[in-house]
């Protein structure tokens, strides 16, 4: 543990990575480490958020992120309510703001939101009193995913600074890519994006990344290969001609992986499309793939974020972890 004293965390909301300083990111990751240890014990429950209410407001279907946030809140002792779009007033034409105002009247301390529109979490944060955590908004940001990816990498390789990370696939539509580019860049890693031009947003190089259109140059000597999900509706001629052509040039298989460092880690935010962006053999390689580890880190990182936001400070990890 590097942090030894309480770090102020003067943020009410976690909407993206851009507002976090490298020190704050480090402190969050240190705290997350503590929670990883806690989560591996039989008795997992703390009282850090006892008496607090957390609402998970998911306008997009999600299994792992919602479960992860739910567990995170519960393990800190919060009362957690899940609201998904099915069966909610949104289907009856209520707007995001109306829903937010209604829920806000119930005095939640934290609201976790996922929405298919970029900026939805920003909009929500302007209207509620409690903390808002962005669990993914459109193509904009997914900050807890970037934090959990960073934690996974740091626990495996010991540091983030100086690493070469290749993010491959549908960068254009990916909030995971945007948040990772920001976070890894802030922490001193070299980030490459690897994709056909149709799947890259305009001026992506201005985000401080190296742009590659082929996997061989993109993966060369990479420490980390991060694959992104390509949604099936985008593969039928709109952005790439076909699944088989995409897999041929951009799917991660043994041959392409051979260009990365011999011990390079393979990551994926899930859910995976096996045989589209990643070969099953590679995805399941227990020496290289940290995909399941990412899921484990997710709970710890979300605990750290909820804790830090609600208390507006990051306590010394040792103190937090003592039950």
């Amino acid at each position, binding site marked *: 543990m590097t942090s030894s004293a309480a770090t102020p965390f003067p943020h009410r909301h976690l909407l993206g990575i851009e507002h976090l300083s490298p020190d704050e990111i480090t402190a969050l990751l240190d705290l997350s480490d503590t929670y990883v240890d806690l989560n591996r014990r039989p008795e997992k429950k703390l009282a850090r958020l006892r008496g607090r209410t957390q609402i998970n407001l998911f306008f997009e279907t999600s299994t792992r992120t919602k479960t992860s946030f739910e567990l995170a809140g519960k393990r800190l002792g919060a009362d957690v309510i899940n609201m998904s779009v099915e069966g909610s007033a949104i289907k009856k034409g209520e*707007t*995001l*703001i109306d829903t937010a105002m209604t829920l806000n009247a119930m005095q939640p301390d934290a609201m976790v939101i996922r*929405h298919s*529109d*970029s*900026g*939805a979490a*920003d*909009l929500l944060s302007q209207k509620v009193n409690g903390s808002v955590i962005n669990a993914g*908004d*459109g*193509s*904009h*940001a997914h900050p807890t995913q970037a934090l959990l990816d960073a934690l996974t990498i740091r626990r495996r390789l010991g540091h983030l600074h100086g690493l070469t990370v290749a993010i491959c696939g549908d960068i254009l539509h990916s*909030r995971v890519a*945007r948040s990772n580019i920001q976070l890894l860049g802030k922490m001193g890693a070299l980030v490459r994006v690897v994709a056909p031009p149709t799947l890259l*947003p*305009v*001026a*992506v190089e*201005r*985000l401080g990344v190296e742009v590659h259109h082929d996997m061989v140059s993109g993966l060369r000597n990479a420490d980390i290969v991060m694959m992104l999900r390509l949604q099936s509706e985008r593969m039928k001629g709109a952005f790439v001609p076909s699944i088989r052509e995409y897999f041929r040039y951009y799917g991660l298989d043994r041959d392409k992986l051979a260009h990365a460092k011999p011990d390079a880690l393979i990551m994926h935010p899930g859910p995976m499309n096996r045989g589209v962006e990643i070969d099953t053999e590679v995805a399941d390689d227990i020496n290289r793939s940290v995909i399941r580890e990412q899921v484990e880190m997710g709970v710890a990182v979300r605990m750290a974020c909820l804790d830090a936001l609600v208390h507006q400070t990051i306590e010394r990890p040792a103190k937090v972890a003592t039950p």
Partner: protein
Amino acid sequence: MTQKVAYTNARLLDPASGTDAQGGVLTIDETIADVGRLFVDGVPDDCRVVDCAGNCLAPGLIDMMAALGEPGREHKETIATGTRAAAAGGITTVIASPDTRPIMDEIALVEFLARQAQKSGVVRVLPAATITRGMAGQEMTEMGLLAEAGAALFTDGYRSITNAQVLRRALSYASTFDALIAHHTEVPELVGDGVMNDSETATRLGLGGIPAAAETIMLERDLRIAELTGGRYHAASISTAASVDAVRRAKDKGLRVTCGVAPYHFSLNENEVGHYKTFAKVSPPLRSETDREAIVAGLADGTIDVIASHHRPEDPEAKRLPFAQAAYGAVGLETSFLIGLELHHKGQVPLLDLLARYTVGPADILSLPQGRLARGAPADLVIFNPDTPARIDAAAFQSKAKNTPFDQRPIQGEVLRTVVAGAAVFEVA
């Protein structure tokens, strides 16, 4: 009983004649009777006197594109509120955009709007009619009959006619009546799911981008068609440096083409979107700083003929949404000229040239007698002080809608009095 009004002690600004001089204006009933160094030996007894106290007196402004809500969108704006907003902004003639409900593609509707305007409007309202039925981009409207019924120009609002043959025939046919075709220029397929300028900002915000080329490709096509047909073509709202160049080249070639801009395209850039500010969501989108500078240059050198408010009132519900879902558009009747004055204060466009874009520019394109201080012209006037420090206050707008990106912007300039057909329709208290 004739009404004579003497406007004295004015700084007369008339772009049509290039006048910038001390003097006065005499109006008799609805018409300007005399302009110049008047009332040197006093004002005749039968005149009512309006002492301009050294302020500027110019022709009333002409707005070539504003949505007035009627018929069908009265919850967003009405002719009464929209024309009061116009009057407060120094505007005396408004071309009402035809994207109403129902869409303005029938003679009866044009006549209806003209009647409504007579009843409840405080400034002149001239209906625009659509180029194609239902703005569907397929079949031409009865342009001759619509023009006879009072349609001032033809436009499909914020929709582009993608079928080149349809636009070709429309331009060709309209030339029979010397009617003006005003066109929104965007290739819809290149707009796609874009909602703001395609740029680093869009990438950072995770918003779909609209490339500048989406506009310029359509515009370049249109200019070729204008050349082919000889029709009178007006690019309604351009936003990019490449578009300014395209129009400039077309004019150099001698084509009968003109173009307009909205105030936000010379005063704001894409950064205004900030963190998903939906009041900055307009069509075409706010562009890069380079584009904005090119628009200013186009206004200065006369490539751009017209500044139109592109007033698009929206209720809060249509704007309080995630950016991609929010409605396009900003209100502009009350701010159009005040924002334009910034170009004068920055020394980028001389005051007389700037006024031309609001007066004689649109008047000549639309063959209107107003927009000039001349004997026999309609007595449509605006008196303003270009220097008064102020702040734009959306809450005080006459318009029903408050969706402006300029709220609380510090400005210099104040409209003091607006006169339509010899009668004051707006006066600072």
